[in-house]
């Protein structure tokens, strides 16, 4: 590590000049992890509702299991998915290995336990009165569930942001099922894998630049969380429908 200072200067130059290589890698990272989190929200939210709102046997076991999965090493999940997506694996016929779809689905699976687990806590902490209240007011079962979900919005949004943090910062899944393919065609290298590769081949300046950008992205997301919390914005947002219900109940009386 001869010339760290020179590498840092080079890194800053690359960032400031908006090097197209770097822009490409950053936008792939945002696109893949963003889509992954949206997918995970789509399937994680109903699962969280199901677990939180229904009573069934083995509920505690499932919740414990989900909490365990939160800490699952990404490279273990990457290995499992690699074997599944490999041409010899059960889903090999789809030909998804080394495609963006494999990365998106892999990262979505990776963050689902976080989303569901935090989502369940958020929904369970909502005042149970809301469910009965909405029904009293003539809401269908489905409408009542949505009302509860809105009350839990603040917790759920936090879990979404935490999921994005984990997705964009993980290396195991994206390396194994994405293949870290660079070059001039359809690429699958993202921030984390490109950092690893560029350290490996001695392009330390580029690696530092990518590292700075990754940290900046994570930092920005956390600032958003803090600001949202501080402004109590989410709470107000979430209180909206409940307050409306209360008002309408009062007027009915």
């Amino acid at each position: 590590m001869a010339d760290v200072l020179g590498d840092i200067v080079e890194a800053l130059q690359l960032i400031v000049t908006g090097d197209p290589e770097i822009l490409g890698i950053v936008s792939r990272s945002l696109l893949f992890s963003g889509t992954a989190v949206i997918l995970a929200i789509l399937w994680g939210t109903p699962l969280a509702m199901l677990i939180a709102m229904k009573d069934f046997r083995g509920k505690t076991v499932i919740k414990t299991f989900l909490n365990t999965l939160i800490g699952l090493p990404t490279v273990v999940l990457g290995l499992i998915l690699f074997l599944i997506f490999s041409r010899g694996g059960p889903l090999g016929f789809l030909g998804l290995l080394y495609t963006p779809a494999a990365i998106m689905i892999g990262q979505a699976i990776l963050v689902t336990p976080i989303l569901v687990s935090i989502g369940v806590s958020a929904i369970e902490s909502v005042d149970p009165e809301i469910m009965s209240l909405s029904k009293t007011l003539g809401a269908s079962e489905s409408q009542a569930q949505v009302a509860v979900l809105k009350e839990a919005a603040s917790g759920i949004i936090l879990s979404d942001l935490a999921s994005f943090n984990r997705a964009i910062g993980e290396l195991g899944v994206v390396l194994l099922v994405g293949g870290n393919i660079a070059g001039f065609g359809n690429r699958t290298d993202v921030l984390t894998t490109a950092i690893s590769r560029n350290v490996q081949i001695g392009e330390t300046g580029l690696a530092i630049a990518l590292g700075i950008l990754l940290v900046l992205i994570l930092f920005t997301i956390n600032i958003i969380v803090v600001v949202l919390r501080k402004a109590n914005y989410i709470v107000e947002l979430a209180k909206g429908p409940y307050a409306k219900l209360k008002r309408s109940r009062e007027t009915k009386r």
Partner: protein
Amino acid sequence: MQAWQKLLIVAALATIIVVAGTLVYFNYFAKRRLFISTTTSLYDTGLLDEIEKDYEATHNVDLNIVAVGTGIAIQHAQNGDADIVLVHSPSVEKTFLEDGYGVNRKIIAYNFFTIVGPEDDPAGIEGKTITEALDGIVAYGDSLADQSGQTQIWVSRGDNSGTHSKEKNLWSKAGYDYETITQKPWYASTGQGMGATLNIANEKEAYCLADIGTYLKFYTDGSIALPALITEEQSLLNVYSVMAVSPTVAANQSIHEKISFDDAMEFIEYLVSPEIQQLITDFGKDTYGQSLFTGAVQPLKDNAPQPLISWVQDYAFFDGSECPQQYRNGYADLYT
């Protein structure tokens, strides 16, 4: 219907859209993809980037290069996840051909491994033969005051790569049992690529076997300060070959019928063409003042320069040929 059921249906649809979108894109809109599993040394030096740029400009194919060690590259090919392998470990390649996974092997380039080590060379190996050098390293390692494993003087790739199998080979040629060597407190295994391993050797001021390409890249840009102590000896020869993955593997028929064999062969013919052989030989001359690789196709035809070519034949030919008849599948013009 309950809210969570409706949401689940939306989620399922979204997942299907992502998967289907990708499949439609890659099957109908993107260029055909050709998967190349390659050893890290070819990739890390930037040679394959150069080749890819040139190839994709003239061919309607998207080269997808996955850089891993030789061992993993071969495994990818066996699983049907690669169409071509570019590797440098003749013994592994031989098994690969014999098992019926690979066909149409061509030797494309050669260079030399090198043993690098600390400037002051405490084991005194500079200019020695490999066997003497390894003797020196073992003697120095065993004589260290600190045998707790804190001081490590030999760093190995330890990742089943071509470089790693070369290292095992050198130890056993010098009369050592490799297993015994790995148990020595002064032996460190990184399990990582050549670049990472060189960095670790540099930090530890240790000796290390490296391919000349990666070494020169790191040494020239000042990342590492270890000088090359032994170079260009017969036993340090390094030969790179390309093989197509066979589309007719009896054991894995359903997997391997998806191999893009024709595209793979087109790429192999491109690699052995005189222009690309020249590109390989010239690569890095401007930056490093010497070639990192030497194209092997014409020298093998000319049977010159000697003794280099007879070394290549000794080291990397099977039954007197770079690819014996039974491991060929069409494309006879490759071997004339």
